[in-house]
C-alpha cells in the first residue's frame, strides 16, 4: 500500500508530537529540523501519485506530487522555516505544537490527490490554526477565535456537501478541474471562497489575524489563504467569475486599510488585496496568468510574512500596534525599520523587489485578454497597496510623529527570520528566473523591459507624491483610535441586537398580556360567577315541563312561519 515516499505532512506531525513532549533548545531544534528534512524529502520525491487507499468504492490518493503541488510544497516548507526561526524565543507548548500541526495540515492539503483527503486537511487547518489566535489568551482573542472557527467550519461543511454531490455525479473523488457546473461545483467554490477571503466572506481574516500572537500571525498569513489559492488554481482555472471577484478583492480592502488604526489589521486587508491579484490570475486562466497567480502567491507569503514579522516585532517590544500610539521607532529600531521597508517595497511591486516580477505577469495577462476595466482596477489597487502597505505601515510605525517610545530591537531570532525573508524578496526580485523555473507552465517571460519598469515606477512615485501632498496639506486621515464597521457588524451587532429585540418584544408582549389578563380575567370571572354560580341566572334549575312547553312554542312558531 505505502511506497517509500514520505508524505510531507507526516514529518511535521511527528515534529509536532515531539515538540509537545520536549522543551527548551531541543524543542527549537526539532521544530527547525522539520522543514529542512521535509524540503529534502520533497526534493527526493519524484512526480506521481502515492499512498493509494481504497475507501468504500473510492480510490484515495494521499500524496499526489506534480508541479503545482511541488511549488506550494516548497513554499510552505520555506514559510514554516522562516516562521519557526521567528518564533524560536516563544515558550508556549500549545502554540508551538499547534503551529507545527498547522503547517503540516497545509502541506497535507496541497499534496492531497483526492477531495476527501483535502477535506480532512481543510478541517485540520481550521482546528489547528485557531489555537494560534487563542494563544494570545485575552478575552478579545477568544471571541475572535470563535468567530474565526465558525467561518472555517462553515467552509468545511460546504466542502463536505460539495464532495458528496461531486461523488454522486462523477463517481470519483479525484481532485481535478471541478468547474462551476452543478450544485457540487458551487458548494466547493464557496468553500474555497471562504478560505480565500472572497468579499463578504472575508471577515474571519481581518477579524482573526490581528488578534493572534505576534508569531502566530506570521504562521496564519502563510498557510490558510494560500491553500485556498492552490485549491482554486487546481479546481477552477479559467472561471471567468473569478476575474471579477478577484478585481473586487483587490479594490475594496484598500479603502478600509487607509482608515484602519491597527497596523496588523491593515496588513490583513492588504493580504486580501494581494489574494485578489491571484484570484484574477486564476480566473483568466491562461498559462501566463496561472503562472503569475502562483508566483504571486509564492512572493506574497514571503513579503507579507516579512511585513507581519516586522509589525509583530513592534508589538513584541512595545506592546502596542495601533498607528495612533506608535511613531519614531526608527531611532532605536533601525534594523527592523529597514527590513520593514524592504517588505513594503516588495509588496508595492517596486522593480528589483519580488512583488514586481509576479504582479506584472497578472497585469499583462489581464491586458492580453481584453479585461480593460479589470486591468484599470488592478492598476488602481497597485497604487493603493503602495499607499496603505508600502507607505502607511512603515511611516506610522517607524516615522510620523515621535511617540516617545524608545524600544530596543527585537530578539536576534526575529531579526534573523526577517533578514532571511528580506533577502529572498530582493533575490527573487533581481533573479526572477529562480522562481519562474518552478512555475507550473514553461514560459519565456521577462518583467524587466522598459515598458513595465517605467510604467510601474511612474505609478508608484506619483502615488508617493499624492501621499506627501495629502500629508503636507493635512488632508490625510489621521490615525484614530477607532473601529470601522464592516461586514462583521451584521453578525456581531445586527443579529444579536435583533435577537435581543425579539426577546424583549416577547417579554413586553407577555407583560401586557399578563396585565390585560389581570384586569379582564377578574371581570370575566365575576360575570361567570354571577350567571353560572349556584344562584346565577343560567344556573337556575327548572322543571322538564317548562322546557317541553318552550319547545312546543318554538315548533308552533316554526309552523306559522312555514305556512306563510
Amino acid at each position, binding site marked *: 500500500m505505502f511506497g517509500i515516499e514520505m508524505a510531507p505532512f507526516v514529518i511535521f506531525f511527528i515534529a509536532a508530537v515531539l515538540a509537545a513532549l520536549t522543551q527548551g533548545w531541543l524543542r527549537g531544534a526539532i521544530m527547525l529540523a522539520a522543514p529542512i528534512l521535509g524540503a529534502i524529502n520533497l526534493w527526493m520525491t519524484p512526480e506521481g501519485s502515492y499512498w493509494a487507499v481504497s475507501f468504500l468504492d473510492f480510490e484515495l490518493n494521499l500524496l499526489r506530487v506534480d508541479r503545482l503541488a511541488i511549488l506550494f510544497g516548497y513554499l510552505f516548507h520555506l514559510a514554516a522555516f522562516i516562521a519557526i526561526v521567528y518564533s524560536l524565543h516563544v515558550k508556549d507548548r500549545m502554540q508551538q505544537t499547534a503551529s507545527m500541526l498547522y503547517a503540516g495540515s497545509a502541506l497535507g492539503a496541497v499534496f492531497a490527490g483526492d477531495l476527501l483527503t483535502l477535506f480532512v486537511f481543510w478541517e485540520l487547518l481550521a482546528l489547528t490554526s485557531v489555537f494560534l489566535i487563542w494563544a494570545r489568551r485575552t478575552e478579545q482573542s477568544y471571541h475572535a477565535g470563535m468567530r474565526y472557527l465558525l467561518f472555517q467550519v462553515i467552509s468545511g461543511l460546504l466542502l463536505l456537501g460539495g464532495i458528496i454531490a461531486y461523488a454522486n455525479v462523477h463517481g470519483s473523488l479525484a481532485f481535478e478541474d471541478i468547474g462551476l457546473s452543478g450544485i457540487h461545483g458551487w458548494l466547493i467554490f464557496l468553500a474555497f471562497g471562504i478560505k480565500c477571503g472572497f468579499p463578504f466572506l472575508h471577515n474571519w481574516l481581518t477579524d482573526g489575524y490581528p488578534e493572534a500572537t505576534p508569531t502566530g500571525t506570521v504562521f496564519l498569513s502563510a498557510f490558510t489563504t494560500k491553500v485556498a489559492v492552490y485549491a482554486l488554481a487546481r479546481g477552477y482555472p479559467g472561471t471567468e467569475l473569478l476575474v471579477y471577484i478577484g478585481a473586487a478583492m483587490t479594490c475594496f480592502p484598500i*479603502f478600509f486599510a487607509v482608515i484602519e488604526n491597527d497596523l496588523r489589521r491593515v496588513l490583513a486587508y492588504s493580504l486580501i488585496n494581494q489574494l485578489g491579484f491571484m484570484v484574477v490570475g486564476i480566473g483568466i486562466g491562461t498559462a501566463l496568468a496561472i503562472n503569475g497567480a502562483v508566483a504571486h502567491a509564492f512572493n506574497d507569503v514571503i513579503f507579507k510574512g516579512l511585513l507581519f514579522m516586522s509589525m509583530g516585532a513592534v508589538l513584541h517590544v512595545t506592546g502596542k500596534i495601533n498607528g495612533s500610539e506608535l511613531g519614531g521607532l526608527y531611532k532605536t529600531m533601525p534594523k527592523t525599520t529597514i527590513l520593514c521597508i524592504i517588505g513594503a517595497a516588495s509588496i508595492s511591486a517596486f522593480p528589483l523587489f519580488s512583488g514586481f516580477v509576479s504582479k506584472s505577469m497578472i497585469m499583462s495577462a489581464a491586458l492580453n485578454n481584453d479585461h480593460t476595466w479589470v486591468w484599470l482596477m488592478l492598476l488602481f489597487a497597485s497604487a493603493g497597496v503602495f499607499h496603505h502597505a508600502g507607505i502607511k505601515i512603515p511611516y506610522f510605525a517607524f516615522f510620523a510623529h515621535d511617540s516617545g517610545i524608545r524600544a530596543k530591537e527585537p530578539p536576534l531570532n526575529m531579526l534573523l527570520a526577517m533578514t532571511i525573508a528580506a533577502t529572498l524578496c530582493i533575490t527573487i526580485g533581481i533573479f526572477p528566473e529562480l522562481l519562474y523555473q518552478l512555475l507550473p507552465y514553461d514560459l519565456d517571460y521577462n518583467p524587466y523591459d522598459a515598458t513595465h519598469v*517605467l510604467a510601474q*515606477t511612474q505609478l508608484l*512615485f506619483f502615488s*508617493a*507624491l499624492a501621499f506627501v501632498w495629502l500629508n503636507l496639506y493635512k488632508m490625510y486621515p489621521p490615525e484614530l483610535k477607532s473601529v470601522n*464597521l464592516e461586514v462583521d457588524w451584521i453578525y456581531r451587532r445586527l443579529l444579536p441586537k435583533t435577537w435581543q429585540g425579539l426577546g424583549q418584544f416577547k417579554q413586553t408582549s407577555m407583560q401586557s398580556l399578563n396585565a390585560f389578563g389581570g384586569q379582564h380575567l377578574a371581570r370575566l370571572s365575576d360575570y361567570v360567577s354571577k350567571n353560572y354560580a349556584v344562584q346565577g341566572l343560567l344556573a337556575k334549575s327548572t322543571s322538564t315541563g317548562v322546557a317541553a312547553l318552550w319547545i312546543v312554542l318554538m315548533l308552533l312558531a316554526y309552523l306559522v312561519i312555514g305556512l306563510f
Partner: protein
Amino acid sequence: MNIEKTHLFDNPKNVKRLLYALYFCCGLLVVLDFVIKRKVYHSWENLWAFYPIYGFVGCVVLVFVASWMRLILMRDEDYYDSPETADKADLAEKAEIAGKAENTAAVLHAGDKHVRD
C-alpha cells in the same frame, strides 16, 4: 528627559531633502516618458503621462473616499466589547434600582462620553 542624540529626520532639512529628491524623481520619470519608446498594449497608455496621473489621482480619490467612509463607519474603539458594555448597563440598572438619580445620570453620562470620544 536625557539628552538624546538627534536622529536623521529630527532635522527638518533632511526631511526637505528627501522630499526634493522625490519631486526630482517624479519630474524625471515624466520626462523619461518622452525619451523612452515603450510598447503600448492599450490605447489609453498613449495618453499624456497616463501612469503618473492615474497613480496620483487614484491615490487622492482613495484617500478622500476612505475619509468619507469614516463619517459613516467609524465607531469608538470598544464598540464591540460586549462584556464592558454589559457591565456598564448593569451599573446603570443597579443605580436606577437604588433610586439614586444622580448616580444614574453620572454613569450614563460617562457611558455617553465614552461613546462620543
